[in-house]
């Protein structure tokens, strides 16, 4: 039964207060939680407008946000509290973010370069935190950012977002479902909703706007107007505001490259550059004072040249190395497996001649072997070897480079160290211990003991930290 969301109504126990924002796609109300369900922070209810005759994109967007928001954590998104189904009364209750909308800052633009850089870095931090959680926002614009009193940025509205591991309810929508015309990336215009670098393009538009008070591609009303950005390089910010320093222009134009491969490849890199202007490598972008084709050629040439130089700079340290990778096959669900595998892939790719030993230390069998095959020592070895093979399979390493070892032992660290010494291992790769380990086995003690006593280098792989404390 669909209930009407309006001031005074009670929806699933939430008492609806004043409407604090009304828009074309929905409204936001202050709400009081049901007694006993106070999340401990102020909350709002977002109610989508899904009347009759509404385009289905509204429903898809609502459900997309309903899928994605609960998965997101950290200070850069509103905390999710509750939601109502689209078949009943659709709503999402979430944290109310204190602070100011980015739109207020944009209204004051052009801002001083220092302020542009610090706001831009805060925006990039927030975008990076989404990307690390497998989410591309695809509708970054001033109205969708809040700046907390402490300066941290919060991203709102995940109605156009895409989660890499969820079905994309907005895929193949015939009508234009990309974000806002002024901020949308060239790839989105080609209906590609999978590239996180689309968000980096939008970041470039926002920083451009903060620095100049203008939009790099205007606010086109037509599809052909939007298509401009598929090839056009916008007027350089310095041509509009001569107080924009070269490094800031460099960063902005690098975000706005029509070719995603020529942009920054991560929001973290944008944040780093904005916070360290003296380290920004200036290309012809920085010097441009008007749109000209020649500088563009120089830039491309320069970039191609630097990429080549980076490849050649790879070091070769004394013959093919033996690398020992410690894999805990007793806990296949441990979140360290994926970063450990990525690190192994990277390390293995550095030297095509290196040999990789995958080692699993399994706990000694319990006393008295049961009737089940898997309870016998041989059975356990077989099972763990199968798991080890499965673990290493995605790396697609030729069999000639790989060996699999299951060792039954009480002390994992000593076993790994003995294996390393015996096989002239040049590098041990293993998972880091976590700050709080309750159920996990030998990775915990092994990592510290191995690092302390190893005869060679040790690469300790940690799951990237996701939750930062929320400043109040």
């Amino acid at each position: 039964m669909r209930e009407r969301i309006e001031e005074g109504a009670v929806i699933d126990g939430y008492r609806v207060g004043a409407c604090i924002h009304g828009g074309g796609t929905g409204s936001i109300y202050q709400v009081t939680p049901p007694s006993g369900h106070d999340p401990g922070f102020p909350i709002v209810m977002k109610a989508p407008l899904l009347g009759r005759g509404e385009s289905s994109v509204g429903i898809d967007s609502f459900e997309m946000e309903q899928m994605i928001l609960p998965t997101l954590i950290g200070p850069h998104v509103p905390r999710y509290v509750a939601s109502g189904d689209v078949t009943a009364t659709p709503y999402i209750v979430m944290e109310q973010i204190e602070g100011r909308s980015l739109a207020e800052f944009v209204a004051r633009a052009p801002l001083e370069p220092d302020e542009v850089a610090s706001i831009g870095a805060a925006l990039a931090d927030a975008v990076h935190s989404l990307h690390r959680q497998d989410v591309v926002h695809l509708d970054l614009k001033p109205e969708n950012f809040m700046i907390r009193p402490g300066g941290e940025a919060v991203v709102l509205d995940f109605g156009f977002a895409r989660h890499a591991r969820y079905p994309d309810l907005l895929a193949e929508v015939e009508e234009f479902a990309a974000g806002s015309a002024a901020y949308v990336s060239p790839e989105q215009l080609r209906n590609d909703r999978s590239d996180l670098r689309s968000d980096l393009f939008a970041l470039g538009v926002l920083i451009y706007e903060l620095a100049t008070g203008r939009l790099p591609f205007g606010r086109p009303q037509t599809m052909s107007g939007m298509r401009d950005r598929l090839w056009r390089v916008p007027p350089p910010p310095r041509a509009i505001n001569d107080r924009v320093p070269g490094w800031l222009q460099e960063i902005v134009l690098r975000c706005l490259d029509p070719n995603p491969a020529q942009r920054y490849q991560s929001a973290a890199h944008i944040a780093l550059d904005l916070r360290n202007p003296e380290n920004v490598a200036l290309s012809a972008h920085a010097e441009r004072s008007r749109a000209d084709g020649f500088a563009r050629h120089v830039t491309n040439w320069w970039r191609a040249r630097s990429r080549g130089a980076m490849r050649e700079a790879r070091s070769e340290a004394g013959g093919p190395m033996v690398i020992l990778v410690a894999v805990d096959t007793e806990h296949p669900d441990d979140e360290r497996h994926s970063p450990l595998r990525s690190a192994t892939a990277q390390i293995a790719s550095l030297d095509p001649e290196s040999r990789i030993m995958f080692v699993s230390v399994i706990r000694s069998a319990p006393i008295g072997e049961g009737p089940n095959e898997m309870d016998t020592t041989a059975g356990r070895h077989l099972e763990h070897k199968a798991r080890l093979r499965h673990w290493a399979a995605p790396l697609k390493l030729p069999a000639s480079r790989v060996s699999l070892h299951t060792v039954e032992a009480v002390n994992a660290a000593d076993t790994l160290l003995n294996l390393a010494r015996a096989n002239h291992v040049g590098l041990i790769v293993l998972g880091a211990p976590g700050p709080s380990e309750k159920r996990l086995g030998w990775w915990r003690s092994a990592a510290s003991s191995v690092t302390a006593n190893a005869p060679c280098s040790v690469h300790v792989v940690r799951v990237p930290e996701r939750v930062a404390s929320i400043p109040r």
Partner: protein
Amino acid sequence: MSDIHANVEALEACLRHASERGAARYAFLGDFVGYGADASKVVDIIASRAAEGAIVVRGNHDEAIASEHSYFNDAAQAALDWARSTLSVEQKRFLASLPMIVREGDICYVHATAAAPERWDYIDSAPAAGRCVDAAQVPYTFCGHLHDQVLYFERSRGRMSEFRPAAGTVIPVRGSRRWLGIVGSVGQPRDRSPAAAYTLFDSDRKEVTFCRVVYDAKAAADKIRKCGLPESLAFRVELGI
């Protein structure tokens, strides 16, 4: 769980995996026999689960047990002939008694597709998925037959889209649109990974998880070799192709 294909090693590994994750009810979506070496053991497990209340539907290989002439390639036919010779009368009767399709609450279970299930058509496109959910007439449909894991979802305007799930990801599937899960093959995956495939559905939270389970595929393959079935069936299981 579907397309177990007489692979008892894979079935037991999946049952153990599912019970560790709290599975409270089981549905077996057909093709218990064929290709593998342990038709009799697998049918016994399925029959005992059925007696405990599991949902069981019939697959095309199960149907072929009853008829001598059918449209299978030589290797598959050899495995069916072999299964026929190892199954007891009672086991054959159990297979012959299985329903083609089961609807329970808001879920439909079928081997191939809810649209004319007896034709054993493959759901190999979004329109085929659309015909299936139209015939199912419930929000959730689960089927097998195609050995891959695929999640089809309905867009608001009534058409289906295909999604390839990553193993182990918990995916919210709200009942406001229709969903079709192709659960993958327990006994003979074909996506170049030998790990057994099955799917968990949390009917309270409306979440689906496509699972892969590593098991001793070599043992299953060796049994196929040992009972004289074509080598191609053994290495399919071993390599997941």
